[in-house]
């Protein structure tokens, strides 16, 4: 097992009620596995979209991206800068 940090911003942060959650994932787990595992916890996490934009260690990443212990996985709501 490996521990990664899930980060939540803006509307996702409001939904989850926290900016950061530590999550244990099996070795070899991908972003998709992490998302499914979180949503599987039920409310409020099941309110997250099934395919959110994510960044792994501060770079946008595909859901097929494999995770390593210590990775920072940010859930990125639709952005609205400018």
């Amino acid at each position, binding site marked *: 097992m490996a521990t990664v940090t899930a980060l939540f911003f*803006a509307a996702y942060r409001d939904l989850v009620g926290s900016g950061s959650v530590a999550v244990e994932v099996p070795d070899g787990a991908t972003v998709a596995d992490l998302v499914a595992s979180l949503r599987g916890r039920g409310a409020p996490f099941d309110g997250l979209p099934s395919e959110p*934009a994510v960044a792994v260690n*501060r770079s*946008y990443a*595909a859901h097929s*991206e494999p995770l390593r212990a210590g990775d920072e996985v940010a859930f990125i*709501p639709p*952005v*609205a800068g400018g």
Partner: protein
Amino acid sequence: MSVHAALTVDPVEPAAVLGCVGGSGDGAVILFLGTVRDHADGRPVLGIRYDAYEAMASDVLREIAGEAADRWGVDDLTVIHRTGELSVGEVSVAIAVSSPHRAEAYDASRFVIEEIKKRLPVWKKERYADGQDSWVQGTTPEPVPRS
């Protein structure tokens, strides 16, 4: 060539941003300012709070600035994005560009603001006159697989 990009919680001074660009080889300078409007879809707005994924947003803003400078060969480019609570009229983003000719300056300036809207991990919550507030509907960034 100088390229600067930063997020800041302090008020943005247009003159200071303008002062970061322009040299004797430049024939064109463009300053773009995004400012907080007093309305959104016809609804009166009192202010906006900008939240950012700070560490990543700094990287992405630098990336966008560098891409613009390279792609259009502009001389200097500075972009500053504000975070925190802003009132109506305050500057949320300032982009200054200088280049020998005007076409590149316009194109690079426009590129930076459009890319900010597409992929800068920043969000804004509008505060309305009726006491309500809501996150502004944004743009889903493209998932870019890491190479």
